[in-house]
């Protein structure tokens, strides 16, 4: 008995093994070939034959066995052809065993029908759940076992199995495992079909090729990408599609992939499409094992990046152009400087020679003429130097090269250089160095030299007699350098402007003394670059004092500077005239604003942005400042929220708030009732203008200028600055409408052609609004108006001015003469 059990188990196991192997090598696919289907049919046919060995005869005509399972599987997985083959196998077995009789034919036909039905079912794509299959197998197995017990021995057809019901159980298990394997295959098959769907529908083209480049698979997206049918792609060589320029790179990468140096790579290259044009694609390559698990294949997702490449190319070109332009500019400046200096060398040199050698021969008037030539040439030279320095600063090209040096020796050097100016004048010079301090400082020697040179030569230039004093002392961590003269002095009203570019005090002196008007601007910028500051005090007829504060160590920590800042704000608060509060995150900006405001006679108070909103507002209420300057990006806080709270609080809402931020969010700011908006970096002039603009006359805005042309706005502003009018500007329709709502200006100067909301719409809105419908509106536009538009405008606008030739004066004249609105203000 053991022997028989062992034989049967061996048969069943080997059978199971064979089926598994076969299925493994022939994965179930959707479009299997006839050969494949026949093969599946054969497998299930053989399986059916084996299952028929476990047949029971219930009555003479009712025979039960498990061949049905085989035939059903054959139908589900193989289709009609497989069913036919399996049925044939089973029929042949039966006929061989029992001979041709009625029963055999009925059995064969019934089995064929079952198989065909199952094939039909599989075509209907009915889903059979795994649970159902298990139940089915289990019930058939149990039924078989029950039958063996219940039925009489003689009812069992196959005598070999008569007593070995254990073998029968194994037969059930065979069916069970086979089905399980099939379920596994089908679920894999289902997943595979999902992948198939994905691969078929992705925009990216999915391909698989061997290492020699021959395509094994291409997804249908190849039509979109290359215009090639996926079936035509298979068998072609991937490498033949690549642009020759990039081929070597791809081959190298693939080699590395082969050696497992890299696991995947993404590369941009050009591929040839069906029209023989090259398109830019980006492919990601990854190594996979083929179905046998031996050879490596490359799976590759490819997408079209022609558009992206175009944009990249454009950007790259633009960047290159910008860099080139910048380089050209620098080169141009360097060349210009050189080219201008070379002839000046001859002019100054020869003039000097003539003056030196022929001084006795020349008539005095000619000598004077030559003196003029020489001094003008020298003047030209300083102009060139100034311009070069200035353009460098503008380009942000100023670098600070820090070294340690002795201030006294630097001062001596400068004196040497300026001695020629003071020579002809009745001037005394006094050097007052504090002997007790260390005069070795760490800073940029050349820049400081330039600063001292400018200040001293100015002092000599602007003085006719008296003493020029250079005083050096120390304050905390700062070296204080005073340059005092007893010259003509500067009028108080002019003091604010002397550090501005191209500004010179009094035109008549300009002619007498000469200069670009850049000297002090450069000086100030240099001092700022060196982390210092410069101040000036002056009185007409008495003299001027320029004071430079410079950190003794350029690299020193900010700690000392913070102390300095504290001191500054303390000093400021003591004066307590017009307090301007500012809430600003950045240390250096705080410092800068502090200085800007102080110079203009405001008392700047910095409010710590680390405090919470309540504390800040409390402080503001206590200070009741003239204006608040608010940064948007604060320490862990949102400036917008603070703005909101300030404008809601009845105690603070009357205080004008100027936003100063690096963000470009004017629209939002005005919507949130901010009074002005400055984009960093903020110049002193801008800051002061903004403060004086919003604090004048309780915010009563008289004129609003709306124009998207910034230059035109600037031009108008310059003219308006000369009047006493309070004005606001807006660069687009939306901002304009916000401003009209918030400030109700007496007059609007309106441009018509603006992006988004045009002047027409703004005008329409004004006329329709209850509150503003009587507002005076002057339309200024460059647009050639149609008759219809003209008619409409004549009705709704108070005046129409054509922009041609930028007749600014005319616009301003109209503004001033138009009494209708000025009465209303």
């Amino acid at each position, binding site marked *: 008995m053991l022997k028989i059990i062992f034989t049967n188990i061996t048969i069943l196991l080997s059978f199971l093994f064979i089926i598994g192997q076969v299925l493994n090598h022939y994965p179930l696919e959707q479009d299997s070939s006839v050969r494949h289907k026949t093969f599946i049919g054969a497998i299930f046919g053989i399986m059916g034959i084996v299952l028929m060995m476990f047949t029971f005869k219930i009555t003479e005509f009712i025979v039960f066995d498990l061949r049905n399972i085989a035939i059903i599987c054959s139908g589900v997985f193989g289709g009609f052809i497989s069913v036919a083959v399996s049925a044939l196998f089973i029929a042949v077995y039966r006929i061989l065993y029992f001979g041709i009789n009625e029963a055999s034919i009925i059995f064969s036909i019934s089995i064929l029908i079952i198989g065909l039905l199952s094939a039909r079912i599989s075509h209907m794509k009915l889903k059979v759940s795994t649970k159902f299959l298990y139940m089915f197998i289990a019930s058939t197995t149990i039924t078989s076992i029950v039958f063996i017990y219940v039925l009489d021995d003689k009812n069992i057809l196959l005598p070999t199995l008569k007593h070995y019901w254990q073998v029968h159980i194994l037969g059930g298990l065979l069916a069970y495992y086979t089905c399980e394997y099939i379920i596994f295959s089908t679920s894999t098959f289902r997943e595979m079909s999902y992948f198939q769907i994905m691969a078929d529908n992705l925009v990216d083209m999915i391909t698989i090729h061997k290492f020699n480049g021959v395509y094994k698979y291409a997804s249908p997206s190849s039509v979109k990408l290359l215009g090639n049918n996926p079936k035509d792609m298979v068998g072609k060589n991937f490498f033949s599609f690549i642009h020759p320029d990039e081929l070597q790179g791809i081959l190298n990468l693939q080699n590395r992939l082969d050696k497992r140096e890299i696991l995947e790579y993404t590369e941009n290259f050009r591929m040839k499409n069906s029209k023989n044009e090259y398109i830019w694609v980006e492919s990601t390559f990854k190594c996979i094992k083929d179905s046998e698990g031996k050879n490596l294949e490359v799976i590759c997702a490819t997408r079209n990046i022609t558009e992206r490449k175009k944009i990249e190319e454009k950007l790259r070109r633009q960047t290159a152009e910008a860099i080139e332009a910048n380089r050209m500019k620098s080169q141009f400046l*360097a060349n210009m*400087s050189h080219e201008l*200096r*070379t*002839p000046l*060398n*001859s002019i*100054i040199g020869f003039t000097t*020679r003539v003056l030196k050698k022929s001084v006795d021969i020349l008539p005095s008037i000619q000598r004077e003429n030559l003196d003029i030539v020489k001094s003008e040439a020298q003047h030209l030279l300083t102009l060139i*130097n100034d311009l070069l320095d200035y353009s460098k600063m503008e380009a942000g090209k100023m670098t600070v090269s820090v070294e340690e040096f002795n201030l006294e020796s630097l001062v001596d050097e400068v004196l040497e250089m300026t001695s020629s100016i003071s020579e002809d004048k009745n001037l005394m010079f006094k050097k007052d160095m504090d002997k007790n301090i260390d005069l070795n400082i760490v800073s940029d020697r050349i820049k400081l030299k330039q600063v001292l040179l400018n200040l001293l030569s100015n002092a000599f230039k602007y003085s006719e007699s008296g003493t020029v004093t250079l005083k050096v002392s120390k304050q905390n961590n700062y070296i204080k350098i005073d340059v005092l003269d007893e010259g003509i002095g500067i009028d108080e009203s002019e003091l604010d402007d002397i550090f501005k570019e191209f500004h010179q005090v009094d035109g008549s002196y300009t002619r007498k003394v000469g200069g670009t008007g850049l000297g002090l601007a450069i000086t100030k910028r240099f001092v700022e670059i060196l982390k210092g500051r410069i101040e000036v005090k002056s009185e007409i007829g008495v003299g001027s004092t320029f004071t430079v504060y410079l950190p003794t160590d350029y690299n020193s920590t900010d700690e000392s500077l913070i102390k300095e800042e504290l001191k500054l704000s303390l000093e400021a608060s003591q004066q307590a005239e017009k307090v301007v509060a500012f809430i600003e995150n950045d240390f250096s900006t705080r410092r800068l604003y502090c200085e800007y405001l102080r110079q203009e006679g405001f008392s700047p108070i910095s409010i710590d942005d680390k405090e919470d909103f309540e504390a800040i507002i409390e402080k503001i209420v206590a200070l009741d400042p003239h204006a608040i300057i608010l940064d948007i990006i604060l320490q862990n806080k949102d400036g917008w929220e603070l703005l909101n709270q300030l404008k809601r609080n009845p105690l603070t809402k009357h205080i004008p708030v100027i936003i100063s931020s690096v963000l470009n969010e004017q629209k939002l700011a005005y919507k949130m009732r901010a009074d002005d908006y400055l984009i960093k970096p903020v110049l002193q002039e801008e800051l002061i203008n903004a403060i004086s603009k919003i604090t004048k006359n309780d915010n009563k805005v008289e004129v609003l200028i709306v124009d998207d042309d910034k230059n035109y706005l600037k031009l108008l502003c310059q003219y308006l600055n000369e009047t006493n009018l309070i004005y606001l500007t807006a660069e687009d329709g939306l901002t304009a409408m916000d401003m009209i709502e918030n400030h109700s200006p007496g007059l609007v100067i309106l441009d018509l052609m603006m992006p988004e909301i045009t002047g027409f719409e703004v005008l329409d809105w004004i006329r329709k609004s209850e509150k503003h419908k009587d507002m005076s509106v002057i339309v200024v536009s460059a647009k050639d108006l149609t008759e219809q538009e003209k008619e409409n405008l004549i009705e709704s606008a108070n005046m129409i001015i054509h922009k041609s030739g930028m007749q600014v004066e005319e616009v301003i004249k109209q503004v001033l003469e138009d009494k209708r609105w000025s009465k209303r203000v």
Partner: protein
Amino acid sequence: MFNILIVEDNINNMRLFKQILMDVEKDMIITEAFLGMEAIEKSKDIIFDLVLMDIALPDMDGVQTRRELIKNSNFDKTVFIAVTAHASGEDKKELEKEFDYYLSKPVDEEQMIFLIDDILK
């Protein structure tokens, strides 16, 4: 007797430097070169005591010319002065690394005479 080489492409500047050199009260022979290559050619058989070198030359720049010249052992003891219109602070720093002295154009006559006089002592 001193041998002096002036390398300068601008004919007027050349004339000026020659005149200025005449004010240095020393016996000297002045050799002119308008190009870097010319300077190299002319220096083959003469040992120069001093070279006034313009930097922006049409064929090769002054720094390069100097480097070529000093390959010749004739120049072992020669003093080089850069005379240039590249007058920014950075230019000066760079040039002072290569040259013994630096004069910016437009040159100050007195300064130049003083310097050369000092060198030729």
